[in-house]
């Protein structure tokens, strides 16, 4: 079944693309990690400040990318804020796609998961 553009570019995705959540450079932060996609040139950096009990006190993202990667990283940062490092590390690729709530073709999977990849990279830097 072909995926229709109308199903992908839903109001919520476009809203988050135009008005992203938690966007910017978090300063000061405890860890940050930059990841990119060779395929499309998308580029995301995640910044995290931890609180007591390894709770994600604050989180932000910067960089540039397509509507899907940008909506995904907005949803993801909103989802993990105030959760623990362990909770965040347990988010699966499938859960990330489910959060977006749109069909993701194989060609766009990298876009959908780029923010999660960057988040995992940042979390691993926390010791």
């Amino acid at each position, binding site marked *: 079944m*072909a995926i229709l*553009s109308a199903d992908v*570019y839903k109001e919520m995705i*476009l809203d988050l693309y135009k008005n992203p959540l938690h966007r910017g450079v978090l300063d000061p932060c405890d860890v940050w990690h930059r990841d990119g996609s060779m395929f*499309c040139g998308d580029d995301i950096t995640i910044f995290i400040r931890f609180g007591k009990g390894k709770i994600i006190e604050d989180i932000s993202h910067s960089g*540039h990318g*397509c509507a*899907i990667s940008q909506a995904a990283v907005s949803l993801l940062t909103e989802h993990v804020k105030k959760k623990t490092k362990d909770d965040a590390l347990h988010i699966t690729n499938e859960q990330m796609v489910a959060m977006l709530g749109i069909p993701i073709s194989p*060609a766009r999977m990298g*876009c959908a998961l780029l923010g999660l990849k960057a988040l995992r990279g940042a979390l691993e830097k926390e010791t």
Partner: protein
Amino acid sequence: MSLISRQQFPIFRNHPNLVYLDTAASALVPDSVIAKMNEYYEEYSVNIHRGLYDLSIRASREYDAARGTVADFIHAKPEEIVFTSGATHGLNFLASVLADTMSEGDNIVLTRLEHHANLLPWQRLAKQKKTELRFIELTNDYSLDCDSAQKLIDERTKIVSVTMMSNALGTVVPVEKIVAMAKQVGATTIIDAAQGVAHRAIDVKNIDCDFLVFSGHKIYGPTGVGVLYGRREMLASLEPFFVGGDMVRIASYTDAAWTDAPQKFEAGTPPIAEVIGLGAAILFMQTIGFEYIQQQEHDLCVYAKNILEKEVTLIGPKEHINRSGVFSFVIDGIHPHDVADILGSKHIAVRAGHHCAMPLMEHLGLVGTARASFGVYTTKEDIDRLAEGIQEVKRIFRCAL
């Protein structure tokens, strides 16, 4: 009267609704090329050279004939044509074997436009040999700034390697002028014709370059095969990178002597069907002729520019004389990847991203572009469909139309 029909391309028979605007990445392959390769596999699919039986003699004859066809196509001699796996192979080979001609403090001159294939091999060489990389600048119109070339090429320039045509912006580079400047300081000259070869007739004697590379799949031929042209005396002076079968005059357990060029650069069994297919692709292009190709491309470029500049921001030379059928564009507020995805859902094939020219995109302050590129089968209807597709993209993203 059109000299070619879309019906000559099986892809269009299988996908009648396809708008293919990604020829700069790979050109579609006509029946004649596929038939010629199938003929090899069905009638004489054996190894070349050294076989003393009819089938091998035929395979060798067809393989050698393809070399002659390529030589004729770019006005070289057959012994100046080396088959490679593609332009990337040719450029990596040159960067490896020319390394010894470089010393600390020398420089290599490229342009801002280069594809990664004509950048990264030189970048690596420059790091190894502590030499400087210099980049000929662009004008405000995305054309090559020849004054900048004049300033950058000096007595310490050992290699000048430039694209003939930008795959990212469509810019046509005046390679004859650049080669002439390089010759004045005795630099080795290399032309990356991967993009240019499908659009302009090439005469290596007229360009006067030492080397020129291109790939088969950009000229309606198969993937996996390409060409390295080397001036006869230059090839004679170079050592092979790969050594092995089919390239020795004599070999013992302790020593070996190579054959002459081009065989000494073609160790191992080559992609025989692909080489023969490349020959057929060149015959296909020669049947159409560059006069027709350039006229058709010019008409399409004029048409496309008029239509597209109303819809998008074009990134490339405005003067038709300085450009070819490659149109890079951006739409304010919409990422190129989203543009290409939505167009793709409407069977319009364009490419999006940095087009293997990341440094160029960064230099221009862009995250990437969407790119529509034309071939001999492209029609004005394709461009109309693209324009409709772009309007749909903007509608989905709620842009002001």
